[in-house]
């Protein structure tokens, strides 16, 4: 279409009975650009902070396989994406000036020919969500690392994952993924992220705790160098350091590297080792064996097992069994269904470790319970059960 002239614009104003004296001198003649109907442009409504991130040059990434709902990731946050429809027509116009901009630049053109780049009657809305990290553990558990002598590792045809691989497969921001890799004690071996096979991990831990015992080192001051020297012939040095990092806090004192061992984490790991061998245990027998199995100087406590094991106080004698929160579903409703399938009624104290990770930013466990459970009193204690009948 030919570009409109000033004369044509003025004629239209006259027909419309608009007084040019009441208008700013500049006019935008809007037309549809060549790509306008193509549907290649879409609108994304930005949550606070994202606009600033984009202007600072950071990127946003949309992640998700074909069978997953897409999420949008900034460098440290994850958002669910949802289409919002509007009954209005939204046109996106490059180079269109506002009255302020026109007034600020008196020399601006009299006629601005603006091409509408695209139009839509919907846009993507964002809602901050929990990063979908369960898949991360699942991928790394496909091929846990069993040590350098493991036959499987050499001939393995399983997928191994680099950071880039994980970034393209996991619906979470890079920071959330890297943080989670730390939380699950993953380590990089030959450029691939690996999780240790649990038995191998316990073997490494055992080397270290035995050494601590035989050298009579205080649990709060375990020297890295000595560990590497003494154990280097048994296991790769990287693995020895990795187990110290996983189960201790690294610090430097007088130029030397030491580790303050996490008593709770070590006791918890040893409990897992004991509990995974049977469906359930007599509680008092377990507590005795557990205390005897942990390193000298460490004290076991049941609260170390939150999210790992569950005590059944209704059975006679009382029993304990392994129940790992990371094995449970990631979706809120599915998680609650699963928990109520395991036990009909839960106290808040018992259920909290198994739903804590579901809390969104600023959401409390209480709010989750109100939404997904129904409360009642049982023997003077408040308990929660399912809102719906469990088949």
């Amino acid at each position, binding site marked *: 279409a030919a570009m409109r002239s000033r004369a044509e614009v003025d004629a239209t*104003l006259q027909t419309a009975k608009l007084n040019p004296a009441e208008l700013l001198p500049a006019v935008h003649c*809007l037309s549809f650009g*060549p790509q306008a109907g193509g549907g290649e442009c879409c609108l994304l409504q*930005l949550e606070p902070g994202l606009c600033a991130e*984009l202007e600072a040059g950071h990127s946003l990434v949309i992640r998700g396989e074909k069978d997953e709902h897409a999420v949008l990731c900034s460098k440290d946050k994850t958002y669910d994406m949802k289409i919002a429809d509007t009954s209005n027509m939204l046109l*996106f116009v490059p180079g269109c000036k506002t009255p302020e901009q026109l007034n600020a630049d008196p020399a601006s053109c009299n006629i601005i020919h*603006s091409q509408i780049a695209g139009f839509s009657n919907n846009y*993507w809305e964002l809602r901050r969500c929990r990063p979908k990290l369960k898949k991360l553990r699942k991928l790394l558990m496909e091929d846990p690392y069993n040590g350098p002598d493991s036959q499987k590792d050499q001939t393995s045809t399983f997928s191994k994952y680099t950071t880039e691989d994980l970034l393209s497969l996991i619906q979470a921001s890079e920071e959330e993924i890297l943080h989670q890799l730390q939380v699950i004690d993953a380590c990089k071996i030959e450029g691939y992220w690996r999780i240790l096979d649990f038995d191998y991990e316990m073997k490494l831990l055992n080397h270290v705790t035995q050494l601590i015992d035989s050298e009579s080192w205080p649990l709060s001051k375990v020297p890295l160098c000595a560990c590497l020297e003494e154990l280097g012939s048994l296991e790769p040095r990287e693995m020895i350091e990795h187990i110290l990092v996983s189960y201790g806090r690294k610090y430097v004192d007088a130029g030397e590297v030491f580790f303050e061992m996490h008593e709770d984490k070590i006791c918890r790991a040893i409990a897992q080792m004991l509990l995974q061998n049977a469906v359930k245990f007599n509680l008092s027998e377990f507590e005795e064996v557990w205390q005897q199995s942990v390193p000298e100087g460490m004290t076991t406590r049941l609260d170390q097992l939150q999210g790992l094991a569950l005590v059944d106080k209704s059975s006679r004698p009382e029993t304990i069994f392994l129940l790992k929160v990371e094995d449970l579903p990631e979706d809120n409703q599915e998680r609650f269904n699963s928990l109520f399938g395991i036990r009909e009624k839960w106290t808040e104290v018992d259920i909290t470790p198994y739903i804590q990770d579901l809390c969104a930013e600023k959401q409390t466990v209480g709010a989750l319970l109100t939404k997904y459970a129904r409360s009642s009193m049982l023997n003077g204690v408040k308990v929660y059960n399912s809102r719906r009948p469990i088949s």
Partner: protein
Amino acid sequence: LAQWVLVELQGEVEPRQSGGLAGSLLGDLHYTCEGVPVLIVGHHILYGKVVQLEKPFAVLVKQGGAPQPSPAGPHGHYTVTALIKTKLLFRTRPKPIITHVPKKV
């Protein structure tokens, strides 16, 4: 990043001639001295207002011309082409322009 403007109109925009919208004129956009946007579209005058968006928009352009977004979400690579922080909202009912045919004297 380029800054674009959103123009929000009630209803739908249809081409006068068949053959799609690409390349065709929409209308003239003026502002009054007080900064009120005035859009002349066909035989209508629309009065609107300038709105600073509380939640700005990003304009995403799909790379590689893949199929339309699926219900599960937009898949593929997108580039942020522009940001939109301002919209011109035309919500008032369009006033029709009645054209006089001048009588020949």
